[in-house]
């Protein structure tokens, strides 16, 4: 055997060994891979009131997810950035996360305005986004990469009408602002009410700067409705409610969920002053009292959360549920997750089942909404019309 043959053999063995070592290294590295999810939350600024609980919900779900070994043995990690309740910052943080090749998907726990600022960039960045925000424009028209979680305005109208029909309500009146949101609600109501056998005896509107609602409420009083819906928010919500009482209207009144913040109750003079008001709400607000899968998921949230649970935690949790499903049922690449999200069908969340189709990017619907009533300072499931 010549020296050259020995060298050749050695070289062969060496390269083989290297090859094996490399393969071994790769095999052991694979389980150590992590799936990274970028999260943008409003941790500071006015939207922190819900942005922070959103983020707590994300974190709780992540712990629950990893406690079951993550997806296919891959741990899941979250990179949280703060948008400071500023759409410009939201866009910048979004670009940072999208440019990071390790990030597979993005969660948003920010205001509708900030989500809408990000929407035009979604298809450019080609990263799947599971988004917060109540505004219908987030999901309609659908952007291929942006998936809205919570039900839209029309779903709240459907939930309200379905419930009213069940209670034997025959006539209703509505009062809405003249802005785009209010008029959208009023138009949906007008279109849907006849389908539930309900006659609208008055549909009133007001300018958001109005302080005197006498004319509208007198007209509503004249129509003698069985149930009244006020879509007002902020100052008008308080004034409509106060003047409703002053003018002696006695029909039960339902208020938009968006109106019922601490400032509302403070301005009307405490929770007891608002006793008996109805509100179509996301069932996450009712927590474990909801039967079935939703209640079970809520109990899991309570178990894994470090904070006392509230509504916005449940939205954060639901982002987790739908994202885990999409990652498990895809190759975990950005394109794969996006395509999987489009196939989501009746995946149960705390706030109702999710459905996405390429032409429909509003995940949850009226099935996740419940009529609630304020009794003894707490919103509970409304079983019947108050006063009946």
């Amino acid at each position, binding site marked *: 055997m010549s020296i050259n043959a020995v060298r050749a053999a050695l070289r062969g063995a060496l390269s083989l060994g290297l090859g094996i070592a490399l393969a071994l290294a790769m095999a052991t590295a694979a389980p150590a891979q992590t799936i990274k999810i970028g999260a943008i939350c409003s941790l500071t600024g006015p939207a922190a009131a819900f942005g922070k609980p959103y983020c707590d919900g994300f974190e709780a779900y992540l712990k629950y997810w990893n406690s079951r070994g993550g997806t296919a043995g891959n741990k899941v990690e979250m990179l949280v950035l703060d948008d400071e309740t500023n759409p410009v910052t939201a866009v910048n943080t979004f670009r940072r996360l999208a440019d990071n090749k390790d990030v597979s998907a993005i969660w948003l726990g920010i205001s509708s305005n900030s989500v809408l600022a990000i929407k035009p960039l979604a298809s450019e960045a080609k990263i799947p986004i599971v988004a917060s925000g109540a505004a219908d424009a987030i999901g309609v028209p659908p952007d291929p990469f942006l998936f809205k979680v919570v039900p839209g305005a029309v779903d709240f109208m459907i939930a309200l009408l379905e419930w009213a029909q069940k209670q034997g309500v025959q006539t209703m009146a509505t009062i809405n602002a003249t802005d785009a949101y209010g008029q959208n609600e009023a138009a949906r109501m007008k279109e849907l009410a006849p389908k539930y056998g309900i006659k609208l005896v008055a549909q009133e509107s007001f300018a958001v700067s109005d302080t*005197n609602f006498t004319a509208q409420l007198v007209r509503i009083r004249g129509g003698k409705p069985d149930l009244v819906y006020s879509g007002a928010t902020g100052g008008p919500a308080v004034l409509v409610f106060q003047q409703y009482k002053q003018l002696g209207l006695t029909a039960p009144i339902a208020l938009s969920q968006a109106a019922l913040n601490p400032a509302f109750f403070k301005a009307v003079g405490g929770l007891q002053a608002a006793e008996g008001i109805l509100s179509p709400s996301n069932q996450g607000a009712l927590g474990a009292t909801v039967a079935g899968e939703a209640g079970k998921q809520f109990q899991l949230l309570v178990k894994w959360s470090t904070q006392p649970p509230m509504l916005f935690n449940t939205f954060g949790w639901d982002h987790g549920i739908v994202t885990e499903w999409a990652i498990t049922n895809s190759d975990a690449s950005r394109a794969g997750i996006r395509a999987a999200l489009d196939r989501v069908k009746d995946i149960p969340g705390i706030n109702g089942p999710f459905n996405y189709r390429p032409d429909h990017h509003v995940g949850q619907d009226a099935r996740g909404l419940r009529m609630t009533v304020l009794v003894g300072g707490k919103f509970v499931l409304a079983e019947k019309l108050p006063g009946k």
Partner: protein
Amino acid sequence: MDWSILSQFLLSGVTTGCIYALVAIGFVLCANVSGVVNFAQGEFVVYGSLIAASLVAADAPTTLAVGAAVAAGAALGAAQERLSLHPARNAPHFILITITLGVSVLLRGLALIVWGMDPIGMPPFGGAAGSFELLGAVLPWQTLWVWGLTAVLLAGVFGFLGYTRAGRAVRACSVNPYAARLMGIDVAKMTIFVFATGGALGALGGAVIAPLALGLWSAGLDYGLKGFIGALLGGFRNPAYAVLGGLAIGILELLAAGYVSSGAKDAVVYALLLAYLLLRGGVLSFGRAALARA
């Protein structure tokens, strides 16, 4: 026709109209003495209601809260004149009017920063919750405070303008500032005085309406605009006509919302204003009548 509904609209309209009337008087006083239409007038109402409501929320007695609101309104008005208009007094009037618009935006922004976006409620004066009936209309007790205080205030303004030396000096400034100065009237001082009065009137309106309309940072634009229209309807010369104009706007709004359509309310009010102005021959042909004795 249901007369109780009509009286409900009229009496409710008078309540809102009272605030427009107080704003309108501020407009007329400032415009006639200084020649400047002060578009920050509506913001004084907002500051009055926010200051009064937040003081009451901090357990201050109502009288003190309202007093503080009025004092703050007067101080704001005087400060506005001194800090933003006096330094630019030689600029043309349209520049000065633009400055007042700037001040109104500034004040609105400050209110948002200081008090936040949420409306602030205020309990009715004297704890008089509940309502009373008048001519078939149901009105909250606070309405009486609004009417009463507005009436007292207007009587005070008219008494001052008509029967005091200082009031005569204010009217003299409105007739001819140069002649007034030659007669020994300190026009600059009078200008500060009318701005302070405008601020105080607006702030009192805000404080007294707060239990009915809440304190809200963004409400100034609406009060300002409606008060301006009231003053315009009254010819921008006579404080008494301005009061009638303000009341008329308040009532018209409710009648339009009640009998025409609540969605078209503002359209109806502005269409009527346009029609009125066209019939009168345009804004510019009011002539140079003196600030009336009322």
